[in-house]
C-alpha cells in the first residue's frame, strides 16, 4: 500500500508542476486533470472512497469541462505568444518561487517532528458521511446551498450580454439623453 501511495503522490506533484510550466492552456488543463485523478487515487488509499468518487465526478468531470468550454469559447492563441516570452525570463518567476519555497521549507520543518503518527487506515463508507453531514453539520449544508445559489445568480448576472431596457419610459429616457 505504501508504494502505491508514493507512486500516486509523485504523479500528482509532477503533473501539477507540468501544469504550472506548460504554455498551452489545453495542455495545462489536461495535466491538471491527471493531477486530480492522482489525488483521487490517494483518497482511495486513505480509505475515503466517497471523496474519491466525488473528486472524479465533480472536479475532473464537471469543473474541468467548464474550463474546457471557456478555453474553447475564448480564442486565446493571439495572447499566448506574448505570455510565452514573459514566462521564459527568469526575472518573472524567480521571486515568487523563492517565496513559496520558503513557505514550503517552514511547513516541512514543522512536520519534521521526531514523533511519527502512523495512520491505521479503515474505510469510512458513504453511509457514515451522510449521517454525519445531515445531523451535526446540517447548518453548514444550508450555508453551502446559499453559496451555490449566490454563485448561480452571480454567474448569470456577470455572463449577461449588454443590458437592454424593455420598459418604454426607460427607453425614452435613453433616447433623449
Amino acid at each position, binding site marked *: 500500500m505504501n508504494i502505491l501511495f508514493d507512486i500516486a503522490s509523485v504523479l500528482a506533484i509532477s503533473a501539477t508542476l507540468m501544469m504550472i510550466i506548460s504554455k498551452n492552456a489545453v495542455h495545462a488543463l489536461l495535466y491538471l486533470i491527471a493531477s486530480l485523478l492522482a489525488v483521487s487515487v490517494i483518497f482511495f488509499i486513505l480509505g475515503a472512497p466517497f471523496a474519491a468518487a466525488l473528486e472524479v465526478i465533480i472536479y475532473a468531470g464537471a469543473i474541468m469541462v467548464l474550463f474546457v468550454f471557456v478555453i474553447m469559447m475564448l480564442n486565446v492563441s493571439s495572447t499566448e505568444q506574448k505570455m510565452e516570452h514573459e514566462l521564459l525570463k527568469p526575472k518573472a518567476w524567480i521571486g*515568487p518561487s523563492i517565496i513559496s519555497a520558503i513557505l514550503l521549507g517552514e511547513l516541512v520543518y514543522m512536520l519534521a517532528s521526531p514523533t511519527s503518527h502512523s495512520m491505521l487506515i479503515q474505510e469510512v463508507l458513504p453511509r457514515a458521511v451522510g449521517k454525519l*453531514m445531515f445531523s451535526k453539520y446540517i447548518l453548514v449544508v444550508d450555508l453551502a446551498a446559499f453559496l451555490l445559489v449566490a454563485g448561480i445568480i452571480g454567474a448569470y448576472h456577470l455572463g449577461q450580454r449588454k443590458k437592454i431596457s424593455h420598459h418604454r419610459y426607460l427607453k425614452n429616457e435613453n433616447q433623449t439623453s
Partner: protein
Amino acid sequence: MNIPMEQGILLAAILFCLGLTGLLVRRNVIFMLMSVEVMLNAAGLAFIVGGAAQGNADGQVMFIFILAMTAAEVSVGLALIIRMFKEFKSLDIDKASTMRG
C-alpha cells in the same frame, strides 16, 4: 496499510505551494484560476488525511463543503473571465489593473 500521517500532510503542503507558485508566476487569468483549484484541492487533501488519521467521517464532510465552494467559485470566476475578455480583448491580468467605475 501503514502510511505515516506526515507523508500525506507533506504531499498536501507541496501541492499547495506549487499552486501558490503558479498563482504568483502566471499572468494569464485562466492559469491563475487553475492554480487556485490546485490550492483548494490540496486543502481538501489535508482534510481527508486528518479524517483518515482519526478514522472518522468529519474530514470527508469538510471535503464535500470545499467541493461545493470550489464549484461556486469556478462558475463566478469563469463568468468574470468571459466578461474581462469581452472588455479588454485579452486574458492578461495586468491589462485590468486600472480601476474605472
